[in-house]
């Protein structure tokens, strides 16, 4: 496939690995922020091809993993209301809530539809005017424009029975929180390529400056990832800290202005609870008051008890990079994708599931 196969070329991968090997001198911990990058690293077997003095730390960039259990409970609550059609991205539906997942709610009779686009949900709302259609709008800055656009479409077309249950989270505040953690051992970042495709690079300069940490905006194919790692290592070895862009074929410096406008029309920044991590200030989007009739949180009277995470789940430590998934005592023994304790074991982007699916042999060898 053009524009894909060249980024999976064994020859280029080989050449980049050689360059990394000759460049690296110190011991470096590099965090790939985005779950898609974690997924690609393990799927392609890249982790055990890197030199031992480069440790990849798998960051909190998996939207499914950081969506608080309370919100899943809210989605389940809404879905169990017979007049509601709850629409969701696929990998959200197996995430355990405090009582059940959306998949279990579906088995109990809830009308839950897996969609690839929130605009489909608006269409379903138009086709079912007597019912309420709620889209479970999770994700980082990447899915925010499409979710916002669905509200704009619904508003423009006078679709009154559509709303979104939003739990958008933002990458830069999470990176800031990781760097502010006293136990932080991250020396450099691979920035999330698709998030920056939307938002551009500007938000990252202050993090680089304040924490003197290299950030390289990076893509998702093996060649992208290795080039990003090489760029971070070069900076670290030369004691530099800069914001660089490896993913130039997709990311423009100022991002996608249309998409940002769409986001700004519908959403405003708010504090947000991250599953396994806790509340991070200014780290999420909520629907603006002007559009509150499309905000499922306000439209419905959702009456559920506050719940707490399973205390034995160490997913927060995994997402902050303090431990590797296989260092958790529950990994495989009590926590598997069939019966997950925490969300990182559910989503294919979650670090625990990624290790479970692709990398158990490496885990044993490491």
């Amino acid at each position, binding site marked *: 496939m053009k524009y894909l196969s060249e980024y999976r070329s064994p020859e280029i991968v*080989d050449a980049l690995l050689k360059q990394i090997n000759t460049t690296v001198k110190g011991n470096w911990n590099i965090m790939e922020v985005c779950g898609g990058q974690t997924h690609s690293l393990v799927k*392609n077997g890249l982790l*055990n091809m890197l030199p031992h003095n480069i440790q990849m730390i798998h960051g909190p960039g998996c939207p499914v993993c950081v969506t608080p259990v309370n919100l899943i409970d809210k989605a389940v609550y809404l879905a169990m209301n017979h007049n509601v059609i709850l629409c969701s991205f696929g990998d959200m539906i197996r995430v355990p809530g405090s009582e059940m997942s959306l998949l279990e709610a579906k088995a109990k009779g809830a009308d839950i539809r897996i969609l690839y686009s929130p605009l489909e949900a608006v269409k379903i709302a138009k086709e079912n005017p007597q019912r309420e259609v709620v889209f479970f709008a999770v*994700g*980082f800055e990447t899915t925010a424009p499409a979710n916002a656009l669905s509200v704009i479409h619904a508003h423009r077309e006078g679709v009154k029975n559509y709303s979104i249950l939003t739990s958008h989270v933002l990458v830069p505040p999470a990176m800031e929180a990781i760097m502010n953690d006293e136990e932080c051992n991250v020396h450099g970042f691979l920035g999330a390529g698709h998030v920056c495709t939307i938002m551009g690079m500007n938000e990252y300069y202050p993090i680089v400056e304040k924490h003197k940490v290299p950030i390289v905006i990076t893509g998702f194919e093996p060649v992208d990832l290795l080039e990003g790692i090489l760029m971070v290592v070069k900076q670290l070895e030369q004691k530099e800290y800069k914001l660089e862009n490896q993913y130039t074929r997709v990311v423009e410096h100022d991002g996608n202005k249309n998409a940002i406008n769409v986001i700004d029309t519908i959403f405003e920044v708010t504090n947000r609870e991250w599953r396994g991590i806790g509340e991070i200030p200014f780290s999420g989007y909520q629907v603006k008051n002007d559009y509150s009739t499309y905000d499922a949180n306000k439209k419905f009277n959702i009456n559920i008890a506050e719940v707490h995470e399973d205390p034995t789940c160490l997913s927060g430590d995994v997402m902050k990079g303090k431990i590797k998934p296989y260092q958790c005592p529950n990994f495989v023994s009590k926590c598997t994708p069939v019966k997950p304790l925490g969300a990182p074991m559910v989503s294919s982007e979650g670090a625990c599931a990624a290790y479970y699916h*692709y990398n158990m042999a490496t885990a044993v060898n490491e």
Partner: protein
Amino acid sequence: MNLSCPIPKLDFDTINLGHGSGGTLTSQLLDKGVFKLFENDLLNKKHDGAIFNLNGKVAMSTDSYVVSPIFFEGGNIGDLAVNGTVNDLAMCGAKAKYLSLAFVLEEGLQMTEFWEILLSIKAASEIADVLIITGDTKVVERGKGDKIFINTTGIGEVHAKANIDIINIKAGDKIILSGPLAAHGITIMSHRQGLQFETTIKSDTRALNNIILQLLDEFGEDVHLLRDPTRGGLATVLNEIAQDAKVGINIAQKNITVEDEVAGACEMLGLDPLYVANEGLFVAVVDANIADKLLQQLKQWEHGTMANIIGEVSAEHVKQVLMKSNIGGRRVVNMLAGEQLPRIC
């Protein structure tokens, strides 16, 4: 498919509860439709069951078909119901001889749709050279089914030279995949609600019995195991083999063909082709000595041009499937926890 056979006059445009009552409407549907279309000496007796003789070792398999949508590029639930069971028997080294055919129809199913499915069943059974000798039709109320469910049970005679048994698998055996992965599953996915992309991908549903019998004629006992990677895909079948035979399996990504358009759709949908369903493929675990020769013969088959040796059986990493990625990394290929779910981004 022979669509020239016109729909018989049945007085109703849709299936209703009466068609499953056992009364006049049932016999009208059966006499004018099913019995006439599939007529053969055993079926024509219209007895409660069929009475027949078989020779030698016999294989039997059953499967229920609930696919939605019922029509898709490359086939429909009817072809699938014949080919699926014929192929399960082929994986036992048997040539399917007789099939039972049972329908659960939902009230309201269009008669034209039902007829088209019946014609596909007829065409598929003729290609696979199998007779439908007994069956059943039930109708459930609207909302209690999904248009049509089909169950087929097949009986076949095992090839005299076949010795398909998991205990025959040994370290060093080669693993052969008969064609490109994931076409059927992606065809079905592209039809499901919310997916609007145009493709020319079509299901690979087809009978595998003729090619399997040819291979068994030539290579007999050196074919140690045959499996068709339907639900759960190649990854699931390989894991089952590794676990049941207590061996390790090594495969190489570069030897596994996924056609460009299918690969592109998988990328877009966030699905791993290793776990996507196929309906016209088989995996053969064969003795290393004959692997190349078998592959050459398989490549002569019209659907086998992209067949390949994708890996081998190992005495190491028992019960695990390891894959060497295209770029030289190594990963574990695990069983899937549940349905493969598309990723958010």
